Every structure is written in C-alpha cells, then in structure tokens.
C-alpha cells in the first residue's frame, strides 16, 4: 500500500505553495522553451540564461499540478549557478530517479502493471538520493506511475533549453 504521504512530502507542498524562481526572463538573451503534457494539459515555460557555460539565471511559468509545479521550482533552485555540464548531469540523475524500473524492484503500487515503463533512457543505476538534496523528496512519485510525466515535464523542457542555448539557435517560440 502506497500512501499519499509518499507523494505529497512537505518539501513538495512547500515548493508548490511558495514556488522559487517563478516568473520570466527577457528572451533573448535567455532561452525560452515551452513544454506540454498532452495527456493532462499541463504546460510549463522555462527561461534559462546561459553565460560562459554557466546557468546564471532560470525562471519558470505555466500551469500545472503540485507535482509539476514543485518539481519545476526544485529544479530551478538546483541548477541555478551550476555549469551546463553539472545541470545536464543533474537532469540525468533526476530522470534515473524517475525510472519506474527501480520502483518495481521494491513494492509495486497496487494495481500497477508489471511491465510499466519509466522515462526514456532512464533505465540506469539508481542514483544516490543524498546527491540530490531536496530533489529526493520527489522520489515517491515513481510509486504513482501516472504522475511521473508531471515531475519530469520541466526537466525535459530545461534539457531542450540547454541544447538550444549551446547550439545558439534562436528559440522557436
């Protein structure tokens, strides 16, 4: 039995009620990237400012549930001031944590199918939650497979933003 307390940790509710780095950045010079979850209609807009290989500033806007909004807030706090390489590592580590595969080895949630799949390419060794700091609070989401896409929406959007920033391509939006 998986309780709601695994999903709605206090840190998550705090970031949902008081999101960090919510807002916009002028784009350009920032990259502005939109992400959608077509299943539920959630949307996020990530503004990321990269200077000399460092994420110097980040903001997010959009609408979504507590998981998608708190994940975006936690993400923005985690990557701000980091190098692009560190940010990419963090994205990889976070998406690995969101892998359903790992959760299957433990207690599968009631009624879940035995061959569910996590995020693409996330089937790697379990990350050390210690290295994730506050982000580890989102670990409980994997026990609710339908909500994984809520948690990863802003991260996938950030990854796209970093790609575009490094390629120097103008934002398509």
């Amino acid at each position: 039995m998986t309780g709601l307390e695994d999903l709605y940790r206090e840190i998550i509710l705090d970031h949902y009620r008081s999101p960090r780095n919510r807002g916009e950045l002028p784009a350009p010079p920032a990259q502005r990237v939109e992400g959608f979850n077509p299943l539920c209609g959630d949307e996020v807009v990530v503004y990321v400012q990269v200077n000399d290989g460092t994420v110097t500033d980040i903001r997010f806007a959009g609408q979504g549930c507590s998981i998608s909004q708190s994940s975006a807030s936690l993400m923005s706090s985690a990557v701000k001031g980091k190098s692009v390489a560190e940010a990419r590592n963090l994205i990889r580590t976070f998406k690995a944590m969101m892998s359903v595969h790992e959760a299957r080895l433990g207690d599968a949630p009631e009624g879940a199918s035995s061959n569910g799949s996590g995020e693409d390419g996330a089937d790697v060794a379990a990350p050390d939650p210690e290295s994730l700091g506050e982000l580890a609070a989102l670990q409980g989401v994997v026990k609710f497979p339908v909500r994984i896409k809520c948690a990863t929406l802003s991260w996938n959007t950030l990854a796209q933003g970093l790609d575009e920033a490094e390629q120097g391509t103008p934002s398509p939006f």
Partner: protein
Amino acid sequence: MTDSRLDPKTAPTMRTEPCPSAVDFSKLKGDFPVLSRTVHGHRVVYLDSAASAQRPQSVLDAMDTYYQTTHANVHRGVYTFAEEADRLYEAARVAVGRLIGAPDPEHEVIFTKNATEAINLVAATWARSNLRSGDVVLLTDMEHHANIVPWLMLAEERGIELRWIGIDDEYRLDLSDLDRLLDGVKLVACTTMSNVLGTITPFAQIAEAAHRAGAVVLADGAQSVPHIPTDVARLGCDFLAFSAHKMLGPTGIGVLWGRRELLEAMPPFLGGGGMIRDVRHDGYTANVLPWKFEAGTPPIAEAVGFGAAVSYLESIGLDAIRAHEAELTAYARSVLTERFGDDLKIFGPPGTVERGGVLSLAYRDVHPHDLAQVLDQAGVCVRAGHHCAKPLMRRLGVNATARASLYLYNDESDVDVLADAIAEAGTLFA
C-alpha cells in the same frame, strides 16, 4: 441472410418500463462484479462513466457464452457456427437500432470501432463527396475532439470553413445568432450532451433550423444515448454516432446510424473483405448496406456483448435511468454546495432539466490532478484533465477540471464518499 434475425416490427418497444419507481436502483451495484472491488482498502466508487462505463454480469456472460459455445466469421460460411455468428451479430444490430428508434435498423445501423470512427466515417465519405472549398461546417464550443479534429483535417485538406456556436454564462449553447451562423452551412455537427458540462443541447431545435437552411445534421450522441431515451426521428438528426463502452457494452464497437438515402449515396469507407459485391482486376462493386461500411472481420463478440448491454438497459428503462440520474445529480449538487459553498465550483447548467449527470469540478486552488489523486486514495474514480475538449477548456479559462460522472449503478452513498474525499483533499492542501 438467414430468416432467424429479430424482426424489428415484432420486437419489444424501446421503453419497456415507463414508471421510474418500479426499479430499485440501490440493488443494481450487485449486477456489476467490478463494483465489489476494493481499492486502497476502500470500496471502489466509480464516477467516471462518462469516459467508460462498467459492465453487468449479463454482458460478460453473453460474450463468454458466445466464445465458449460457438464463433465463426460472419457472412462467409454455411456451417452451423457461421450461421449462429451471423444471426447473433445481426440480432445485435437490430437491438441497438431499436434502442434509438431507427426506422430501418437492418440497413441503417453501421458497426464501427467507436463513436470517433463513426464521425470519421462521415467525414471521410459523406463530407468528401459533398463538401468543397469554401463550404461551411458548423460546430459548437462544447464538442469533444472526436467531433472537431476530423473537420479540422478536412478544413486543411480542402479548405472548408468551420464556424462555432458559442456558449452562454450558464453553460448552454448560445443560439441567439443561429440563423446567421447557419447561412451557407452544408453540415452541422453537434453534441447532444457535453462530456464536460453535462449540458443537454437543444438538438432538435438546431436540427430543424439546420434543415431549413439546407444543411445535413450529425449528432454526437456518445454522452446522451447511454443515459437518455433516444429517438432519431425526434432528434431530427441525419447521422448519429455513439459507443458501446459508455453504455455497459464492451470496448471496440460503436455505431453510426444514418438516414438510408444518405448512406446509400455515400462511397464506402475502408476497403477490404465484406464490403464488396465483386472484385475484378480493374475495379470493385461495393456491397449493400450496412456491410458496405464494414470492411474486414467485425467485432462479433463485442456486438453480442453490446446487444446484451442494450437488453440490460431496456430491462430497466432509459426513462427510469434518466430520472434516477437527474435525482442523483440534484443530490450531488446540494451536498457539494452545502459542504463546500463557494470553495467548489461546478461547471454546468443549473437545475437538472438541461443537464445530465456529469459534474466538472474546481475545488479551491487544488489542481484537478491532485484532487483526483487524493480521491483515488479513498477509492473514488474521477477523471482529471481536459476531457478531450480543449477549445471548451479555453472558453472556460481552465487547463483542466476534475469530473465526476454518474450512471445507473451510482447512488447517494457514492456521492457522500466523494464529498468526504474532497474534504480530505482540502485538509492536505490547506
């Protein structure tokens, strides 16, 4: 064809039980095995029938018995199994046609995959042979994507114009400008009941005006046919689309009903076996109705289950089902309003006359996904999201709602559990 099919003229009439009080709805849960399940330690409270309903034992038995005692492909064999499959498949067609008052069910009821495919069939055949660049199709702001995207695709393909009937502040269609909107319209495609708002549209009024303007009229009946007595003549539609799985039947089968002269004039839909009279190196001759539109092996066991679902609905009576749901909707509104006041908003018309048992909810600033997650923990199944009606969601100014939808097996205790679970969500997200 065999002679043993049901004759629609001698079949029972569609309203088997006009007196609502004759049915004890509190006992119906027992007919649905899945409703005895527990989820997270709680009795399951299923409030998502607008997405897909559950099945009574009689439907499961009909399909099991079919596969355990017979089965062959239809329309192709002379042996006993084939004759039985053929007879059962065609009997289901007649039973389904009878439920909607089809004057000629043997020819006018086309089995499709679902309501979506039924609408796509009309878009691919009738519309392609009747609409050209500049022609107008009139839709409404309440449509499900199934009755929007096929027309958007056609608009891209051949430059037809789409117009939209808006909605008023009480979530009804705004017909004040109908005559102007209908000017030059070739097709009106309109829902009979909104899957988000529960609004029952004044379809007959729209159809009459549309016919005066020379337009053909398609009804998306996916939400109303399972819940409200339906008569195609009274609706005044030329086409009616609906799905079995929303009316206690299996998934994988739906219906397009069409007026016979329209269906006769339409080109076939998919090509393949069953839909042809003759095939040569240089061409083919299409089969007669209804098989002209049923290429390939159809969903035979599903048709048998669909027929059993229709029998179950008729044994209770659509009038009684409608009355039960109206009563339960009124109860739900009063309980939710009393307990949550202005914290809870219901997107839909007031009263129960112009609406069915679909309650789209916004509770404080709790996101619908979070609300649905907390409700699931209490065993309550509601849908959260845009409900495949994004133009309507934009009109309502929301990204998503949490939707509780009622059916014949729901009762006041289900509404009470829903209200308690909403209160729990309020505590968690205080």
